[in-house]
């Protein structure tokens, strides 16, 4: 789960890392009032859970309240990386002497936390790592010991007078603690500014909360920004199903993430286009009925592939759910089954008894059959359109 800057910064403040004074505003008048209250030149920043806001024109300096209002009005409603800007953060401008980069994140390579520091802040860290690799320091942390002050000082040390190793180390230790206390998968400060008086201030903050930890971080999660979703995706989420709407016409129900992705791959391989990702594996295997209703609610769907290969997810339970929904909805789209694994003998018997169908012996055959339908439908539609046109 991602957070906008204004929702992420309180995590830093609570850990003892300084952040600029700021106010959230949802319209120009609020932004003007915020700037007047802050009483100094301000920065007006688009609040979206995405990077590169500056490049998109979503961060603007304003010398007085009227300029802040104009900046907010220009920024609100912008589309940045697929997110509509609905609020801006108005913050006091800082007297910046230098900009650093600091982050803590979950690192698959070391299978533990990784702390990163660079004296080159304010730009994309991947670019710094590529162009000046010696300016980016990384330290894997033993999670049972945490980030120890000596390790933090080693990360910040050796850059000469441009980096005061003691103050930076303090921020790194606090940042690591905040990362641990909030189940972050990423906590990044870029830039971490050194002010002219030597203090360190986090000018921006990116926080990603581990989705698996939401249950024990409910207060924090309530401040997160949900992923942009289509109406069907939102309906699926409310049902506890993982559904992603795509632009094809072959509906997909499968169990398990790997098998569902593969079903989409094989549809593509046979020249078809999947209409959705929808998996009902794991704990969701009892939800076949609402799952089928979701897939069929997409008007683009011309046929359906039901692909089950049961391990934990029992194919008899999943098939029973699909049949219940099928009988309730009596849909007109053709359906192509491939059913193997746990409970498949019972599932096959159920399909035979209730729908009069026998699953295809292989997934490829089921999918090739489904793709052939969409091609036929398309050709027929084209022929009809051509006929209508003459």
């Amino acid at each position: 789960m991602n957070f906008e800057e204004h929702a992420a910064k309180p995590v830093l403040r609570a850990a003892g890392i300084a952040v600029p004074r700021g106010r959230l505003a949802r319209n120009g008048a609020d932004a003007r009032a915020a700037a007047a209250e802050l009483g100094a030149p301000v920065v007006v920043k688009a609040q979206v859970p995405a990077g590169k806001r500056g490049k998109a024109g979503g961060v603007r300096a304003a010398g007085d309240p009227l300029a802040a209002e104009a900046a907010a009005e220009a920024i609100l409603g912008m589309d940045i990386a697929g997110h509509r800007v609905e609020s801006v953060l108005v913050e006091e401008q800082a007297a910046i002497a230098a900009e650093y980069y600091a982050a803590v994140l979950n690192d698959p390579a070391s299978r533990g936390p990784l702390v990163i520091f660079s004296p080159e802040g304010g730009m994309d860290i991947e670019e710094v790592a590529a162009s000046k690799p010696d300016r980016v320091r990384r330290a894997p942390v033993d999670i049972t010991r945490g980030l120890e002050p000596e390790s933090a000082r080693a990360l910040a040390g050796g850059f000469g007078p441009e980096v005061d190793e003691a103050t930076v180390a303090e921020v790194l230790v606090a940042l690591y603690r905040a990362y641990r206390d909030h189940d972050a998968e990423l906590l990044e400060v870029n830039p971490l500014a050194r002010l002219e008086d030597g203090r360190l201030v986090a000018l921006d903050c990116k926080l990603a909360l581990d989705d698996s930890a939401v249950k024990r971080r409910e207060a924090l999660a309530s401040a997160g920004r949900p992923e942009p979703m289509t109406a069907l995706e939102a309906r699926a989420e409310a049902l506890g199903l993982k559904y992603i709407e795509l632009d094809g016409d072959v509906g997909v129900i499968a169990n398990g993430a790997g098998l569902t992705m593969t079903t989409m791959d094989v549809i593509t391989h046979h020249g078809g286009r999947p209409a959705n990702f929808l998996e009902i594996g794991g704990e969701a295997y009892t939800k076949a009925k609402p799952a089928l209703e979701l897939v069929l609610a997409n008007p683009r769907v011309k046929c359906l592939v039901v692909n089950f290969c049961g391990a934990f997810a029992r194919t008899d339970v999943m098939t029973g759910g699909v049949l219940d929904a099928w009988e309730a909805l009596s849909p007109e789209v053709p359906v192509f089954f491939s059913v193997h694994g746990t409970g498949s003998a019972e599932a096959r018997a159920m399909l035979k008894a209730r729908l009069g169908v026998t699953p295809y012996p292989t997934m490829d055959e089921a999918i090739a059959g489904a793709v052939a339908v969409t091609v036929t439908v398309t050709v027929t539609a084209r022929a009809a359109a051509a006929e209508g046109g003459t």
Partner: protein
Amino acid sequence: MIVRGGERVIVQGITGKQGTFWTERMQAYGTRVVGGVNPKRSGTEHCGVPVFASAGDAMREAGFDVSVLFIPPLGVRAAAIDAIEAGCPRLVVLTEHVPVQDVMEVLAAARANSAAVAGPNTAGLVTPGECFVGFMPAFEPDLFRPGRVGVVSRSGSLGTLICLNLVQAGFGESAFIGIGGDPIIGTTTREAVEALDADDRTDAVVVVGEIGGAMEEEAAEYIRDMRKPVVAFIAGGASPPGKKMGHAGAIVMGDKGSWASKRRALEAAGVEVLDTPSGVGPALRAALGGPAGAAPSVSPP
């Protein structure tokens, strides 16, 4: 991370609905389950084996080689560390949605105690004809039968489909290693491939990967110098970038973790990367010269 018949297994969370369902199936298949753990039911019997208060008690009183965890997400850290500190050499963590920092703590404890962990978010391990640990349908004869092909898979469902195709092509499996679909897991693709390379019952390896992370690329570094043939299928070629595709680990950011990057790395290491799972039989036949990996007359007990 291979479990063979005769090794002693305990089930943490044995008394739950899924723990019970799968313990019965493991026992029926031949897995040597010697006990279970549930602090609230210690001293009783369940599925015909003693229930202990902790893995530590189970180790002292019964002894075991492998622990499999049927434990809810927020209980995994404590249960796994209990088993590791009891001296358990191998753990199979089935649970999905374990907080990643908990996983890191478990893996740190495992490293400190020289324990190996499969998962989290794995469907488990199978040695056809001998035993299975987890919730794999080892007992389905059209999916698993003794043979000489080792399978490594991030996904249980897709790994099962690959096994179906193997058996349909006349092959059988020497071992199935489910490593799990999470971004941070105990046994990586590379480590599982290394285990199968060292296994004298395995003649060829099938790597079942998916988009996200860099594990297939890391495995390719090792596979480059292997003598046993390796065939791979990577799921997610048709998935849109920037979205988590069901598995927390299955997300493409830029070119990192992309299907193209994995395919490139594996092909450069001499691996045949399949377009569809049904290609696995022909690819193995070409690599091994006929379904020599099959043992058609042997069926699971």
